[in-house]
């Protein structure tokens, strides 16, 4: 599975080796958090005051606790790892070394994963680690 998108491979150093393919063209209308939550119409920004979407009642912020809170309000809870389990829908959450949440990825039905990469393309990738950025600190998994 080769995607041939060098601009992505440049910023996601594990992508080419892990394998990926494009799913849909660039769009700045939604971001990875929205995409993982099934929303392709809005940007989920962590802060409501500026005008970005964030789930009602969820903690606001740029850190992993805020991101976990957002997905908890969608019915997810933190689990041990991102391995796929029958009866559970999992997502992978990413944190960088500065404590910012950076990304969320969700599995496809065939066991691969899919991500929206910033304002760039949506892609299918083989593993959650494929879209870890150079400054990845930690991943968490949530399931429902």
């Amino acid at each position, binding site marked *: 599975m080769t995607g041939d998108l060098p601009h992505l491979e440049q910023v996601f150093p594990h992508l080419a080796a892990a394998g990926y393919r494009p799913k849909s063209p660039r769009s*700045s209308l939604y971001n*990875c958090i929205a995409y993982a939550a099934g929303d392709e*119409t809005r*940007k989920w*920004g962590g802060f409501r005051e500026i*005008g970005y979407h964030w789930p009602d009642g969820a903690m606001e912020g740029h850190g992993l606790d805020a991101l976990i809170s957002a997905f908890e309000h969608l019915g997810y809870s933190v689990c041990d790892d991102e391995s796929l389990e029958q009866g559970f829908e999992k997502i992978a959450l990413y944190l960088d070394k500065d404590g910012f949440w950076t990304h969320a990825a969700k599995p496809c039905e065939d066991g691969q994963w899919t991500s929206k*990469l910033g304002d*760039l393309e949506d892609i299918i990738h083989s593993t959650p680690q494929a879209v870890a950025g150079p400054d990845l600190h930690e991943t968490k998994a949530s399931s429902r």
Partner: protein
Amino acid sequence: MGQTLAISDELHARLEAAARRRGLESVEQLLEAWQANEEQIARFERLARLWKQETAHLSNVAKKALHPAYQEIIGMGERVVPMLLAELKREPDDWFWALHAITGASPVPAERGSLRAMTDTWLQWGAANGYRV
């Protein structure tokens, strides 16, 4: 080295009137102000281009807003608001933090999230506050 440009009396009178409307004392001051503005526009365009190139892969808006080029644009202050609004009109993007940080305004209702709706709201805010875009 300076350049000399011959202009008609009529055009000179119009430039003098434009200078007076801006509280300036001479046509020379008006031309200097225009040149400074052109330099600010070029600086903004360079920073905006750099920010877009280096943050397009990011999803966390707070992280995007902390990019040095974005912070430098915020540091340019109120004079950059018309440029931000024009850029937003040309290509909607995450300029809302910068506009909020500079103006203190929050015209977009919370929970909106739609880039187009947020853009339209800021452009309406700009028109209502005297910014011609």
